[in-house]
């Protein structure tokens, strides 16, 4: 079943001589439960693509459908609500709210929705992410790996339709990297969580179901591994 579809996405930054074509007519679709890796040289448009898929940036042209919903046809507030319910974003630099503790950061999308926190799911996540004894620590009291685990928790808390990760291990040592990847794979295999992960690390890419290779704002190769 198709869960995510990009249609003729283009993104142009700047104007005239300074114009940068970050994405040029990118189209592809992702099946539910698929683990997709995006690779490519720096500046090839990977992050731009991911941000557009997650609804945090708008394409210059083209459309994104998530679960059949035309993402950018929504009004701004609908888009915000869409983001917190349907998209889980993970970044290289974690992007946690510095004044909120671990539990608050993880439950942020739920609380922002004005909903009750599902205690069982929270406990489950804290255990899985090995953050049980860090519940009330602030981000600056945590190591990089721990902060990244918190941001994974935040991305997963709402059971989003898709989790998008932009070089989630780019800032971690290999031991922590592998741990983070195992966690992502776990939620992919265990809960059928659809995953799109940007990575520079070939060994990580090879663990995915499918690898998209980008170059100059275009998809050069699209290989299904398993």
């Amino acid at each position: 079943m198709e869960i995510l579809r990009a249609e003729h996405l283009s993104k142009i930054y700047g104007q005239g001589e300074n114009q940068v074509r970050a994405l040029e007519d990118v189209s592809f679709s992702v099946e539910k439960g698929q683990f997709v890796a995006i690779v490519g040289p720096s500046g090839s448009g990977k992050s731009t693509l991911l941000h557009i898929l997650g609804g945090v940036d708008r394409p210059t042209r083209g459309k994104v459908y998530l679960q059949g919903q035309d993402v950018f046809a929504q009004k701004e507030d609908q888009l915000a609500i869409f983001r917190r319910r349907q998209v889980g974003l993970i970044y290289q630099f974690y992007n946690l709210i510095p004044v909120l503790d671990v539990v608050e950061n993880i439950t942020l999308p739920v609380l922002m929705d004005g909903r009750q926190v599902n205690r069982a799911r929270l406990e489950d996540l804290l255990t899985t992410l090995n953050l049980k004894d860090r519940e009330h620590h602030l981000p600056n009291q945590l190591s990089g790996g721990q902060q990244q685990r918190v941001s994974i928790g935040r991305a997963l808390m709402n059971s989003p339709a898709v989790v998008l990760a932009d070089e989630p291990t780019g800032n971690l040592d290999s031991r922590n990297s592998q741990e983070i990847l195992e966690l992502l794979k776990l939620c992919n295999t265990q809960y059928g969580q659809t995953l799109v992960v940007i990575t520079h690390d070939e060994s990580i890419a090879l663990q995915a179901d499918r690898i998209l290779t980008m170059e100059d704002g275009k998809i050069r190769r699209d290989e299904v591994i398993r």
Partner: protein
Amino acid sequence: MNIVNQVTWKNMAQNKTRTMVTVLGILLAAAMFTGVTTLGVSLVDYLRQLAVYQKGDYFIRFDYGTDENVQGVSQEKSVTKAGDLKALGYTSVSLEQDGYTKQETYVVAAGDQGFYDMVTVRLEAVRLPENSGEIVITGNLAVYLEKLGLPCGLGDPVTLSVTPEYQPEENASFPELPITGTAFTREYRIVGINEVVCKLDDEALGLSYLLTYADDHTEQALWHRLYVKTDPAGDVYGLQDKGYGLTEKANTQLLELYGASRYGNVNTWIYRICGVLMAVILAGTVSLIYNAFSISVSERTKQFGLLRSVGATNAQLRRSVYFEAATLCAVGIPLGILGGYLGIGLTLRLTGHLIRGLLAGSEQSGIVLRAVPSGAAFAWAAAASAAAVFLSAWAPARRATKIPPIAAVRQSLDYQIPKNTIRSGVPAPGAFPDFWRENITPSAGENTGPLSFP
């Protein structure tokens, strides 16, 4: 508290210095507003006290009324205070001097408690009467009595024979006064001596009053003088039209201070000047507090963007800025009002005497300009301060909602932005450059200078 506000709250706690400075700004604004409103209210209060001292605490006076008139006024809903001076009759003393007879006639009148509360009777000696057997005579009468060899000191008895008949001779147009009472003779005890004459502004009759107190033993009234205060003050005109006496006279001096004069209203002018001053203060404080909020929002640009990227709506972000404003107000405004009140209180205590020489009658009245605590003054100051704060927060709150999430989530190492593209005037580091925003809506096309990419 919702989570976005919680984030705001925690940021405020973390940025203690900036929070304190903003509270201080709001405090100063509230103090200045309170100073102005309290000064205005105190000035009006001072002028009212003077007017009361000079004429009395009433809006209108009905003269030569009947018992029915008294009844009628007491049934008027808008009347808040009434004083009744019952004229009991007339008494005369005559003195042979230098070959001719000098005769002086007085009105003997009994005031009820309301009358003594509302009308200032200026005594030279001792006290006001407290029952119908006590009387305050005038200085003039005391001189007559002394010349007649009668006792005239305080505590002395004086026997007055009172008749119901008197018509002013010179004033032909004067209304015919009722002669309903009966003549009587009564011994009074002198408890006080009034100023030389005591005409109580009764120019028509032109007689001095000898004042006693109205109680159950008071004789039948010939006619009444009714002093009335209403709420709202403007209702006196309705009473005036009903004519609860043969003649009536409005206390314009006081009405002017209650905004109910048909001519110029002094209090309205004072409040207008306050309004102008407050507008000036508003303009000043808005620019001050605006900066504080601007800095707060730009310092938190990254956080706003992050919150948006995890799905905060515009309304949530805007509300969080207003939440910050409300929290700061909750601390700054009460403290400011207190400070402003104490400040103006001290100022007037030190300088209040300066105004005394300026206004007629203020010197001998002993009334001084003092700060009056007024709920209305505080409420206006609070409202003006709140308005200043929310006006200041408005633009930054809007700006908070304009921060695109991409600005926050773009990893800083992705590319570098040349310095000159960062908008000047946004002081905080990490402030959000305009051109990113414009990339979100490609139509907003302003050239933002070259970019260099690593």
